[in-house]
C-alpha cells in the first residue's frame, strides 16, 4: 500500500492499477479434478530434484564427512583403557 494510495483510497489499496484478474478454472466437461497430478506432477518433481540435487547434496555430504571425522577422532582421543589403543600404529 503506497502512502499516496492510502491517502486517496484508504488503507488496503495496494497502489497498483489492476486491469486484469487471473482466474483458474476447469472446463465444465472435465470430470476428473486431479487429472495429471501424478502423470505430470511426479516427472516434474523428478526434474526439479535433479536440477537442484548436486548443489544441495555436495555441501550436505561434506558436512556429514566432517561430522563423522570429528566424532570418530574425539572418541579416539577419549580412550582411557590401555587395551583400546595397544594396537595403534
Amino acid at each position, binding site marked *: 500500500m503506497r502512502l499516496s494510495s492510502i491517502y486517496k483510497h484508504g488503507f*488496503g489499496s*495496494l497502489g497498483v492499477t489492476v486491469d486484469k484478474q487471473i482466474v483458474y478454472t476447469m472446463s465444465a466437461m472435465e470430470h476428473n479434478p486431479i487429472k495429471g497430478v501424478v502423470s505430470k506432477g511426479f516427472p516434474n518433481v523428478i526434474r526439479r530434484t535433479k536440477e537442484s540435487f548436486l548443489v544441495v547434496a555436495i555441501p*550436505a555430504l561434506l558436512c556429514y564427512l566432517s561430522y563423522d571425522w570429528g566424532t570418530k577422532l574425539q572418541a579416539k582421543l577419549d580412550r582411557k583403557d590401555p587395551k583400546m589403543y595397544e594396537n595403534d600404529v
Partner: protein
Amino acid sequence: MLRNNPLINLFIGSFYRLPAPININYFWNGGSTIGVFLVIQIVSGLFLSMHYTSHMQMSFFSVNHIMRDVNGGWLLRYMHANGASFFLGLIFLHIGRNVYYKTYYRKGAWIIGILLLVVSMLTAFLGYVLPWGQMSFWGATVITNLITAVPVYGEAIVKWLWGGFSVENPTLNRFYTFHFLFPFVIVALSVVHLFFIHMLGSSTPLGTFSNTMKLDFWPYYGVKDIFGFSIIISSFMMLVGFSPDLFGDPENFKKANSMVTPVHIKPEWYFLFAYAILRCIPNKKLGVFGLVFSILVFFFFLFSKKKLMSSLFYRLIFWSWSMNFIMLTWLGGCPVKDVFIYMAQISSFIYFFFLLILMLI
C-alpha cells in the same frame, strides 16, 4: 460499496483481494505459518499464566502442578514449549528463504524482520528460565554473565538486570514480566512488517516484478496457506503427542540448585549455533562480540545490490552456508573438547565468510 467501510476495506485489500504474484511457491507460506504459531504461543501462554507462579520457591512446583493437576495442563505446557521450537525453526526457514531468493532489497521489511528475530530469541530465552529447572537457572546465569563483557559498566549493568548479586527471585519475576510483554511487541512489529511488505506486494521466486499479472489472495493463496498450516500443525501435534521432550534437556527435570552446576550447560537448539561461536573463541569479550554479531550481521545485507535470480555459484555458497549452520548447531551441543572446538572455529569462520560472499555476489 463494501470498500467504503475502512475496516472492511482493510480486510479486503490486505487479505481477501490482496493482489499476489502468480508464481510464489510453498516457501512463501512461511510468514503466515509463523503468525499461526505466534497465536498458538500467545493463547497457550495466556492459559499457562493462569496457573504459573513466578516465585523461585514455587515456580518449579507450579509447572509440575500444571503438568499433573490442571486439566489439559500437560498439553498446554508441551504445546508452548514445542511451539517455541517450531516458531523459531520457521523463522530460520523464513530468513533462509529470503536470503536464497534475495528479497533483502526490501529494506523496511528486512530491518523489521531481523528485529523480530532478535525479540523472538529474547522472548524464548526469558521463557526458558521460568520453569526454574537446572538448565533454566544455569542457562540464565551463563547468558546474563556475558553482559559483564561490556567495558567499564558491564558489572553494574548485570547487577541491575539481575536485581541482585546473582540470578535469584527478582530476576525470575522480571523475566516473567518481560516474557509476557514481548510477544505483544512481536505482534506490533509483525503488523509493521506486513505494512512494508504490502507496500510493494510479495516478492517472487524469480526476483522479477509481477505488477502486470496478479492473483487475488483468496482463494488461491488463502487455501494454499491453510493447506500449509494443516501439514505443519499435524507434525507439531505429532511431536507434542508422541515425543514432547525430544527438544528438551533432562537437566530441566531437576529444580534449580545454585550449589550444583550441570556437567553440560547448553541452551535450547535454536541458540546452539550462536553458542558454538561464543564458546570457540578463547577471548571472552571477542566471544560475546561473535555471539551478538552472528545475528546483527544480517543487517549488513541492506548494503547488497539487488540482483535477479540467484546464480549457480550463489546457490552453492548458500547451501554450503546452510549445511554449515546445521553443523554449528550440532557443535554448540557438543561438550567442550579439543576436536569440537577446533571444528567450531572453522565453522564459525565459514559462517561469517560465506555470509560476506552472499552479500557481495
